């Protein structure tokens, strides 16, 4: 991909500021407001005491008069939330590592070893990317049950790679393709084995691709919901999204404060990770689409 926006001055300087404000900044501001408002609302509800939360007459709903940590405290000490957080971390990290390992090997084999039929296998893996979890979860539930993995972290660690591996492999194939063959040929002549070539030449050169795939895979598994909802039944084994939805609602009583605190604190780790690796994340997202 060639980014050309830096070199072009174009004819922008012909445009006056008020005109550009109406044409660009105003609509952009409105859209960004629409995109960010739910987060603001989440944060406000997290730190608002119940008295203010359910009384719009006396208190302006947009602001907090007496910020409180009571909802967060309730969430961390009266529920299994810390366990859900721990499970989510374990599951996301393990499934990401497994997927990265499998995908690096597969992408290298498809793209560089070019064994018999590698093109078709590559195509099949891409098709696997298009199979949505919504049509797999029922038979997978039966399989998970048969294997005795039901209601454990391992059920998720082994099933998440089904949507991570196709994505990571597809992305890494694109990265490996950009590394010149000549480098590998030199190494082959020098007597390096294939595994040495992979670990000492191809992988270091495609490190940005591996990071992109890893970050994206991590956020995907952090977000995953339907498998975790189906395969996990006891509270202490749940992940954050599932725990928040199923355990913080007692019949008709919604603990809005705790729910919002769970939503906020469950999002923060992903957002922090994302903010450090925005460029990698974006290149993973756009790279997977552009092939």
């Amino acid at each position, binding site marked *: *991909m060639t980014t*050309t*926006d830096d*070199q072009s001055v*174009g004819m*922008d300087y012909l445009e006056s500021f008020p005109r550009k404000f109406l044409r*660009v900044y105003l609509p*952009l501001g409105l*859209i*960004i407001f629409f*995109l960010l408002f*739910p987060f603001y609302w989440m944060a406000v509800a997290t730190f608002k005491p119940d008295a203010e939360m359910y009384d*719009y007459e006396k208190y302006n*709903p947009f602001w907090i008069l007496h910020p409180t940590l009571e909802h967060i405290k309730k969430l961390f000490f009266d529920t299994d939330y810390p366990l859900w957080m721990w499970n989510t971390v374990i599951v996301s990290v393990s499934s990401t590592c*497994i997927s990265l390992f499998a995908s690096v*090997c*597969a992408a290298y*084999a*498809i793209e560089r*070893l*070019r*064994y*018999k039929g*590698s093109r078709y*296998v590559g195509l099949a893996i891409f098709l*696997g990317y*298009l*199979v*949505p979890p*919504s*049509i*797999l979860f*029922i*038979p*997978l*539930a*039966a*399989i998970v049950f048969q294997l005795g993995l039901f209601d454990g972290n391992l059920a998720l660690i*082994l*099933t998440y790679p*089904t949507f991570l591996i196709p994505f990571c492999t597809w992305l890494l194939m694109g990265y490996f393709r950009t590394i010149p063959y000549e480098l590998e*040929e030199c190494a082959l002549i020098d007597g390096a084995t294939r595994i040495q070539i992979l670990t000492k030449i191809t992988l270091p050169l495609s490190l940005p691709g591996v990071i992109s795939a890893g970050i994206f895979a991590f956020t995907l598994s*952090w*977000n995953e*919901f339907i498998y975790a909802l189906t395969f996990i039944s006891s509270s202490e084994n749940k992940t*954050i*999204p*599932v725990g*928040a939805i199923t355990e913080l609602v007692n019949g008709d009583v919604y603990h*809005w404060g705790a729910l*919002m605190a*769970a*939503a906020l604190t469950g*999002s923060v780790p992903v957002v922090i990770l*994302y903010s450090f690796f*925005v460029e990698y994340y*974006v290149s993973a*997202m756009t790279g997977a*689409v*552009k092939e």
Partner: protein
Amino acid sequence: MAVMAEPVAAQVKRSSLWTRAFESRHFLGAMFMVPAIAILILFLAYPLALGFWLGMTDTKIGGAGRFIGFQNFVSLSKDSVFWLSVFNTIFYTVAASAVKFAIGLYLALLLNERLPFKSMVRAIVLLPFVVPTVLSAIAFWWIYDSQFSIISWVLIKAGLITHYIDFLGDPWNARWSVVAANIWRGVPFVAITLLAGLQTISPSLYEAANLDGATNLQRFRHITLPMLSPIIAVVMTFSVLMTFTDFQLIYTITRGGPINATHLMATLSFQRAITGGNLGEGAAISNAMIPFLVAAILLSFFGLQRSRWQQGGRD
């Protein structure tokens, strides 16, 4: 494709079967594929096949089922809730995808302008896509609350309505509410991927068009759209697939209610299979989604071929 250089000398020197096998790229390739293929066959290909089979059985949770052919589909075809879910799914997909495309393309064009803090703005725009869907859906759930909805409150204060809107209690209100939440989540994906496509269009094309006296609209119509159409096809295919098979938003915000008015095929199959215990029937509902998905993929695939051919590409 370059021809691989086989190290002939090494082969002569070390000749045990094992080392020779490792010199062969076909054998080595197969070894490298083992982890990925093992996982994908066991947890992707096998369940896909098992799903077809389950859809033709009357399996219940905790018991073996027997083969009943197309019985599940016959009973579903007489089931008004199933047809309602098909209607909802199509409505949800069409409405949300159309708006996501319109706003997404518009936002991409805006972000492609010269802006201060451009990369930060782009990072912020993508946030709804990054944050776990279920967790942001909880925020929407609260925004749509029947008593404490902030939208109702603002509209009342502005004097536009007199009493609180029942967002999730009325069938059509609920449908539009979940569509809005889906749009909110999907717009960043469409916008940022289309932006990446826009950035590959050479500015010299626009300068040439300017010199020829093209208007803004003409430049958009005759340069931006044709150059962008392949990526639009791919992005919208992904977007349609994700929307059609959506589960998280509906399950969090409405659980299919009120009176099944927002049930999608995915949520209905979950309700029948996992909550209700009829694995066979639920699998049949999931299987009923497959023709739609295949149609969407084929449509975009052939559309893509045609546009590539029009632009003089090879494939």
